[in-house]
């Protein structure tokens, strides 16, 4: 006789097996590995929670300690490959296949292991793509997650760094999977319920809090005059020109410079209240002066940022907070917000080619995508109009029938023509192509495709790719802002001057900006300490950013 509840029965049996090492739902740290051996079967799909910020580090270590004779060939489906343990499980044969989104600090080792055949790669995704696949063809059998606290029933408090947890738990718990949470402490009553108890099957109380990386803190002291100049160009030539109110910023120094120029340069241009008021953005400390000066109306966040907890709590008019007063972040919702409700993405990259394709891959590193491709892409399903979106659409297709013409999201790449160690930002051919050849990938890992990019901003000027009418014009527009790189020096000077006359390229002087005015005294805060002062002492930076 056919049975239609096989998976549920299997799950219930595994939970029962796991319960032999648990007291209710609570499992001692020393029994965490035994628990995993009881609930995991060879070949299971496992989500080991980790992204670019928080990590289920205790459960990673527990998984690494399982007997590979009992647990092996796992298929890891997780946002971040960040901790060494995330790759050690492949070395030990516990895991075999990998689908992921981001691998920042492990990017070199992951490339080496892929090349050496230690890892069978499914695909590298964006966050939103991987989350989507959790509900279609990559649903986890077991999720190993991290939370701040739990009560004995299993209600979880994830605190400001909620991030991916609701999405991972939704996909796992409602499709006959098992959810194991490591928590910093077990309490009588959680401050707020982020994950209800009936979705959580086991809890392990860790001896130390889960690891969180302060990834979004940029020290204003390190911002250069070149970055200030590009920031001024972006504010006057793009924010003001399109009236961009709803946006997302990348994490680089150029966008940190923009955040710190809003209350000074932006104020002088009379832009307050007209631009940069609603964000899909992590709690960037560099945005504190703009918030304090009344620029920002609302921010929804993917995750939190170490040291910003008290500031966020005290500024609940701006941030999303829970009944306990602390931030509630949610990566899936914030990514969706960035994709559908923001009119602009602006961020940095490592390499841009002659058609505007960009990549953060170098020949020996696969850093993954994270969220940038979703932020930096036109949402083809978008239907609501807004002024910047319509204006960008009009620039791209001036002869189109206005009532049938799609708008365009502004996708802006900003950077200095030469990056760290004088490495040029502009290249004839992306390293990503060489890497794809080497690893026999079907697709080169392109962060943002050229046909989504609308503007490139460097210290030499702004290239508006919406106004280019041929791939040759596009190439010359890019060369025309590529400075003294080989790509820049390879420009057709006459063509570049023509593009400038048409406003496709705009130099600082075309915008009334004197490069000599790009001075650090224009930054609303010139150090981390200044940010602390702006916050009235509410921002408490992690020690690595303190020099006092």
């Amino acid at each position: 006789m056919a049975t239609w509840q096989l998976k549920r029965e299997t799950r219930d049996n595994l939970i029962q097996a796991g319960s032999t090492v648990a007291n209710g739902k609570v499992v001692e740290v020393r029994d965490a590995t035994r628990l995993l051996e009881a609930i995991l079967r060879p070949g299971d799909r496992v989500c080991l929670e980790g992204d670019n910020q928080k990590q289920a580090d205790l459960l990673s270590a527990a998984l690494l300690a399982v007997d590979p004779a009992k647990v092996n060939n796992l298929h890891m489906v997780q946002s971040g490959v960040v901790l060494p343990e995330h790759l050690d499980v492949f070395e030990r044969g516990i895991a075999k296949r990998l689908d992921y989104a981001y691998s920042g600090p492990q990017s070199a080792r992951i490339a080496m292991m892929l090349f050496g055949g230690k890892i069978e790669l499914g695909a590298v995704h964006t966050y939103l793509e991987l989350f989507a696949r959790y509900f279609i063809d990559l649903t986890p059998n077991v999720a190993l997650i991290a939370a701040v606290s739990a009560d004995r029933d299993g209600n979880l408090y994830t605190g400001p760094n909620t991030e991916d947890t609701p999405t991972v738990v939704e996909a796992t718990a409602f499709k006959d999977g098992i959810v194991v949470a490591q928590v910093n402490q077990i309490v009588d009553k959680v401050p707020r319920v982020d994950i209800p108890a009936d979705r959580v099957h086991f809890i392990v109380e860790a001896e130390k809090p889960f690891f969180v990386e302060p990834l979004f803190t940029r020290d204003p002291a390190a911002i250069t005059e070149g970055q200030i100049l590009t920031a001024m160009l972006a504010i006057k030539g793009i924010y003001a020109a399109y009236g961009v109110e709803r946006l997302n910023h990348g994490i680089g120094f150029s966008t940190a410079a923009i955040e710190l120029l809003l209350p000074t340069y932006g104020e002088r241009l009379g832009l307050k209240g007209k631009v940069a008021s609603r964000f899909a953005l992590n709690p960037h400390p560099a945005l504190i002066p703009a918030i304090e000066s009344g620029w920002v109306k609302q921010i929804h966040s993917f995750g939190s940022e170490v040291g910003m907890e008290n500031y966020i709590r005290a500024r609940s008019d701006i941030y999303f907070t829970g009944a306990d007063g602390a931030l509630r972040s949610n990566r899936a919702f914030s990514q969706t917000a960035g994709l559908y409700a923001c009119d602009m993405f602006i961020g940095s990259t490592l390499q841009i080619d002659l058609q505007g394709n960009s990549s953060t891959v170098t020949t020996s590193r696969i850093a993954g995508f994270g969220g940038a491709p979703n932020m930096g892409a036109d949402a083809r399903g978008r239907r609501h109009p807004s002024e910047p979106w319509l204006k960008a659409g009009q620039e791209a297709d001036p002869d189109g029938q206005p009532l049938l013409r799609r708008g365009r999201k502004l996708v802006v790449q900003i950077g200095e023509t030469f990056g760290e160690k004088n490495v040029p930002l502009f290249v004839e051919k992306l390293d990503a192509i060489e890497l794809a050849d080497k690893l026999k990938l079907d697709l080169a890992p392109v962060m943002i495709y050229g046909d989504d990019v609308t503007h490139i901003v460097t210290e030499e000027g702004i290239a508006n790719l919406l106004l280019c009418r041929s791939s040759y014009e596009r190439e010359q527009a890019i060369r025309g802002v590529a400075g003294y790189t080989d790509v820049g020096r390879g420009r057709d000077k006459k063509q570049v001057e023509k593009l400038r006359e048409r406003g496709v390229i705009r130099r600082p002087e075309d915008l009334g900006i004197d490069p000599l005015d790009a001075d650090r005294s224009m930054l609303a805060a010139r150090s981390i300490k200044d940010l602390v002062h702006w916050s009235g002492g509410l921002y408490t930076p992690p020690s690595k950013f303190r020099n006092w």
Partner: protein
Amino acid sequence: MENLSLHHPTRQSAVGAKKMAIVGVVASGNLEVLVERVLPDHECLVEIRTAAEGFGEVWKAVVADFIERYSPGGLKFSINDGGARPDAVSLRLAQAVRLMEEEQ
């Protein structure tokens, strides 16, 4: 270390009367520019001592654009470079010319 000496004729002499100025600092990724009003009115000399080797063509391009744009006749620039990016070089040279515009 690499030394470059770039000599250019200029359309005009530099504005101002200041004899000498210094801008920037020698640090990694930065540079120091000493500028002196010691040459005939329609000549300019840029002497470069740089920690980064193999960027001769880029220096020539940066300096040629600078001379074209500012016409700094009569000025001698001595650059002590700590591996600055070309945009930083352009900016420091422009800052040096502005300082020389002062009367004394």
